[in-house]
């Protein structure tokens, strides 16, 4: 696939999945929380509109899967934004100010790389109970380091470019330089890395769900659905296969999209 086409295809798929997740629950006659103990683990069927079958409490898996996609995407996107905000401001400051501060700040990033982060996330989830917001923040807090490094590198090189130099000589204020000249030039690389951070955030969320530290029932996420599906893998394979396939599809698309955007960005930069 050529760069542009793969971007369009993957973005299209992601858009379609997201739309289905938003609209799907409306169309279905079922809701995500109502149990039906007379109809547990039934196979997908059109006749009763359980398109993806039911789970072990008789809840409609189609609606739950759509809800799971929403929450998974929400967690991933917000987590990425958190890492974006921290990473970009940290990296931009270090890169723009430079000198000792830069050295100290990057040393700090190096040491943070040394921490067993996943352990800290588990501790965080344990210490502050299952707070939905906290899942975002925790995941975002892991992922900002790469972002900070990349943004700093980019800022450093931008700082030396002629147009920044020229702006400085003509007496433009530092703040203005950062916003007018540096920030717009960072957007490309930042978008690429956010796209690549999202699949990581999705995997961390599913990992937390596996440990039972994910979102609260009857809310759900793709990770939680997959974890539940694993337990019925032999008797009710659809309960695993459908959410697992969707999870894989979303991860794949974000990875492809990120790669495509990176190629595009690289090509534009080298030309």
């Amino acid at each position: 696939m050529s760069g542009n086409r793969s971007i369009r295809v993957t973005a299209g798929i992601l858009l379609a999945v997201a739309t289905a997740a938003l609209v799907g629950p409306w169309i279905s006659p079922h809701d995500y929380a109502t149990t039906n103990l007379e109809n547990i683990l039934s196979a997908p069927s059109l006749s009763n509109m359980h398109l993806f079958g039911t789970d072990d409490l008789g809840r409609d898996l189609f609606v739950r899967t759509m809800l799971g996609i929403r929450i998974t995407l929400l967690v991933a996107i917000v987590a990425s934004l958190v890492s974006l905000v921290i990473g970009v401001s940290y990296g931009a400051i270090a890169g723009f100010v430079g000198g000792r501060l830069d050295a100290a700040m990057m040393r700090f990033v190096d040491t943070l790389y040394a921490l067993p982060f996943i352990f800290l996330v588990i501790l965080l989830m344990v210490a502050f109970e299952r707070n939905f917001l906290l899942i975002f923040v925790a995941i975002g807090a892991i992922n900002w380091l790469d972002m900070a490094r990349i943004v700093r590198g980019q800022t450093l090189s931008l700082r030396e470019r002629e147009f920044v130099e020229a702006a400085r000589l003509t007496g433009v204020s530092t703040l203005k330089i950062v916003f007018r000249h540096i920030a717009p030039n960072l957007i490309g690389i930042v978008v690429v890395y956010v796209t690549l951070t999202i699949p990581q955030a999705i995997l961390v969320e599913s990992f937390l769900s596996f440990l039972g530290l994910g979102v609260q029932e009857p809310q759900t996420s793709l990770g939680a659905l997959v974890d539940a599906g694993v337990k019925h893998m032999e008797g009710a394979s659809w309960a695993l296969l459908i959410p697992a396939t969707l999870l894989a599809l979303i991860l794949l698309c974000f990875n492809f999209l990120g790669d495509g955007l990176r190629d595009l960005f690289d090509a534009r930069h080298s030309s």
Partner: protein
Amino acid sequence: MKMLRTLWLTLILAVVAACGGADEAAGPPNTLERGISSDPETLDQHRSRSIQAADVIRDLGEGLVGYSATGELIPAAAQSWEVSEDGLKYTFHLRDGLRWSNGDALTASHFVAGMRRLVDPSTAAFYAEMLGDLENAAGITSGEIPVSMLGVAAPDERTVVLRLVQQTPYLVSLMTHPSTFPIHPGSIAEHGDSFARPGKLVSNGAYRLEAWVPGSVISLRRNEYYWNNAGTAIDAVNYHVIVQDSAELNRYRAGELHTTSTVPPDSFAQVREEYGEQLHVAPYLGVYYYGYNLTRPPFKDNAPLRQALSMAVDREQLALRVTGRGEAPAYSWVPGGVNNYEPPLSSFAALSKEEREQVARRLYKEAGYSAENPLKIEVRYNTNDTNKKIAVAIQSMWREVLGVEATLINEEFQVLLANMRDAEITQVFRSSWMGDYNDAHTFLSVLQSGSATNMPRYENEEFDALMALAADQVDPEQRKLYLEEAERVMLADYPLIPIYFFVSKHLVSPQIEGWGDNVLDYHYSQQLSFKAVQ
């Protein structure tokens, strides 16, 4: 290129790690492989508390009395015993020639030493109150009386005498509990509190401790000095620590285990179909319940509301469809099958589902709630698949029958425990109670005013008075009546919602003989054997 070095370092480490390290030897061919759901916290019978620790300790040690595979009391270290007429003095006669696993003689004084260590405040034993009815026990545990004053004595090498301050009809069954097992005085003197580690533990049961890899496996070997060594068929036992029930099932199916500690709820139907004969399900002394926080609104002084919520829970559906492992729906607090006890049932047990829902709706309305003004409550449960499913189902039942808006809060076990203990933010919470001995007292005493385990904070003078009357009663028939009346009084107050009574569930390999189902869920390895190969 710094990374290149890291890479080589990793590779070299990998090769070194893969080659190095001798592995533990497997047991003899005649080895029983058992699943256990968590590591014991220690194999010291006094400092341990978990059911898992007790399971292993019952293989390693032996009390004065034991249980048969089907749950009848049988002589163990003591070959006989008598009770005085007033029921306050028990005399146990030990077998001749009892020995410890290192060959030392086992005498009556070692039992005395064990019981003294149990109540000694410096031991800080979890089960210190187990022998609370012995003379001076309470005063010793609170540090007012010296340990030597405990009402247990060894008049000679083969006699243990216990003196009680009040009637305790279940006293003999307490002698099967690991916390009353004897202590090898030499090892305590030598190793202090770490005497229970592999290589140090001297035990008096059918097995001795060979090795323990925390988080993985506990290995036991035949104790050649055990009095019934000839009657012990299996040479070695491995307890494999498997936290995830689905992983345990996989290992059983792969032929790696002979017995499992449980069967995962999600696979139960499939297991019953595939392994019908190998599946053992039996009633168990435990009740699963939802408690109300009685110290705060909306449940404080609001019996109609408590009754409405209780009646709206369809226990038959829960037991049949959600847990689905043969659990009995609970309409009382004490399970059926307890010695000398007929649990009274909640008033609504006889009503049909529709009648119950009707009454529930009426009570709900009387308590001042309606569709416009629904009850909004939080339900707390600890993270676990069964708990989750039950919570979701009950939330749904309450919404459909009454229109209650319940929010589910899934907490980690330690968090839930702390919240229940504080009784501040809790409203409805999930909990359970497992009996420690086969008597209604182990259940009913939980709900006495001020009991540390009284999670709903239930207080009723009439209930407490009936419990006190029962405690002083010598006549078992009269005692039974008092206890039953106490439960009846309690049930009418609806301080909690009993949901179902537990069952024990195990898979037992067809190669194994001697497995018996019993209400205590005790399965001594020494009573099992491999079927002779045809």
